[in-house]
């Protein structure tokens, strides 16, 4: 079942001279884990915001084409309606703190109160996301007193608690250390396995290669390619788009070893190990 359909999406920010998104077309099935990659200003954040309705409702600007999210056409529905289906986590965890709550626990409750979840369920959901993102120990702290990493986890928890069918994450691990990002990715993956559709814009290519089912490669607001991590990272022109493949892929490329029976280079540690040990060859 197609969860998200984007057709010929064009978008220009007010006062901008060029299109931020130019004729973007793709579709995503339910439960897929999608990575969005591209250099800075390629349109990753804009695309993420187009899926939750911030583009065009929040910014206005020139909009063309169609985005259908879980049967709702974004152009014709308010952000509040869409927020019940799609949750979005932004890059900067600091500005995602509402400022109206004095503890992490209350902060996570904010969205749930707004959409009218009954009290007992609010408490259940908060307890489960605190556990999922491993921030139970700071639940009574003031949100502004948290470290960047804890704040980022809290931001993700606040959205996950709203139980959206689709989760859009815009560089959700920028403030986290390697162990922390791994934990967050594992948490997101476990949600993905429960059937939630995940769309993730990220610069950490190793993580994209490891977790994503498909990768959308953007450049200057256009879709260059939308395929499996293996195919995307095996592209010869990747550097032309300002990207580098995962380190495993680069090593295997330098050694000239491809996955057996395919034209792709390995993209994860496991694949590279298998190929280099000669098990798969």
């Amino acid at each position, binding site marked *: 079942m197609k969860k998200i359909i984007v057709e010929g999406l064009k978008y220009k920010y007010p006062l901008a001279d060029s299109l931020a998104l130019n004729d973007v077309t793709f579709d995503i099935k339910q439960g897929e884990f999608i990575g969005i990659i591209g250099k800075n200003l390629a349109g990753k954040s804009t695309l993420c*915001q187009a899926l*939750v309705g*911030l583009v065009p409702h*929040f910014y206005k600007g020139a909009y063309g084409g169609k985005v259908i999210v879980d049967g709702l056409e974004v152009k014709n529905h*308010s*952000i*509040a309606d869409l*927020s*019940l289906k*799609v*949750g*979005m986590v*932004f890059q*900067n965890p*600091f*500005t*995602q*703190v*509402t*400022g*109206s*709550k*004095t503890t992490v*626990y*209350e902060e996570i*409750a*904010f*969205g*749930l*109160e*707004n*959409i*009218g*979840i*009954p*009290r007992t369920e*609010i*408490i259940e959901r908060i307890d489960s996301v605190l556990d999922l993102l491993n921030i139970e120990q700071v639940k009574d702290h*003031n949100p*502004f*007193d948290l470290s960047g990493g804890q704040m980022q986890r809290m*931001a993700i928890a*606040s*959205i996950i608690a*709203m139980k959206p069918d689709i989760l859009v994450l815009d560089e959700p691990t920028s403030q986290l250390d390697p162990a922390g990002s791994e934990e967050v990715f594992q948490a997101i993956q476990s949600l993905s396995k429960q059937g939630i559709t995940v769309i993730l814009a990220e610069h950490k290519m190793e993580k994209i290669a490891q977790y994503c089912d498909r990768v959308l490669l953007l450049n200057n607001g256009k879709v260059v390619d939308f395929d499996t991590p293996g195919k995307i990272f095996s592209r010869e022109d990747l550097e032309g788009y300002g990207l580098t493949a995962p380190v495993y892929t680069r090593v295997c490329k330098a050694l000239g070893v491809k996955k057996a029976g395919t034209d792709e280079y390995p993209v994860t540690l496991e694949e590279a190990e298998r190929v280099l040990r000669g098990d798969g060859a």
Partner: protein
Amino acid sequence: MKSISLYEEKASFVHDVDPITKLWYIPFAILIPIILPSFTISFLFIGLSLVLLLGAKVIRKTIPVFGFVFLILITVVLIQGMFKPENETVLFQIGPLTMYKEGLLFALTITLRVINIICAFMILVLTTKPSDLVEALVRKGMSPRIGYVIVSVFQIIPEMMATMSTITDAQRARGMETEGKLLVRIKAFIPLLGPVVLGSLINTKERAMALEVRGFNSQAPKTYLYEEKTYQFSKVLQIGMLLLTMAAVSWRIFL
């Protein structure tokens, strides 16, 4: 984090009273001495408020507030005592300055009223968490948007101040003079404003987006994490205050 709210968390019977009842107490305590303008009633209400503040164990927090207010009240006493047009009866003289009875009595009325108003507000402000008060009001039908604005100010302002000190440090690290004479300090203040104001505007935009995706504008009826704070005697107190006010009004009209 530093808070700009005066609320003090303590366990007392005043803290247990729900915010709406405390809110009702303010017009009650202000109106009655105006309806029944006698010094006895004014003293009675100030006494009552002070007893409540003592009971709430927050009386120490009121000292700086009163300190500030007394400064203004002293000028009221001096000016009214010396220059009120109705002044006739000389009370005493200090050198060339003459104090009159009429003016001083009038100044006393003002002073009592001001102290009374301040005491009544302090009971609410010092013993009620701002977010509890706003939540109670939102439950009563106030717009959650206005509620958000009021509550968030208490956290966003200290955040802006923290940002400001970070920027000051950054500029000091690049060799700017920020300490010393007044002129130096003023000069150091100007380049701070740009980054702080612009930064806040950008933050506000991002925060607005984050609020949107968390259903801030949702039409669904709002629910609350905490159960409504109720106080067993709140109805009694509210009705009691209303009856007393009505009694005072009829006393004034019919007697």
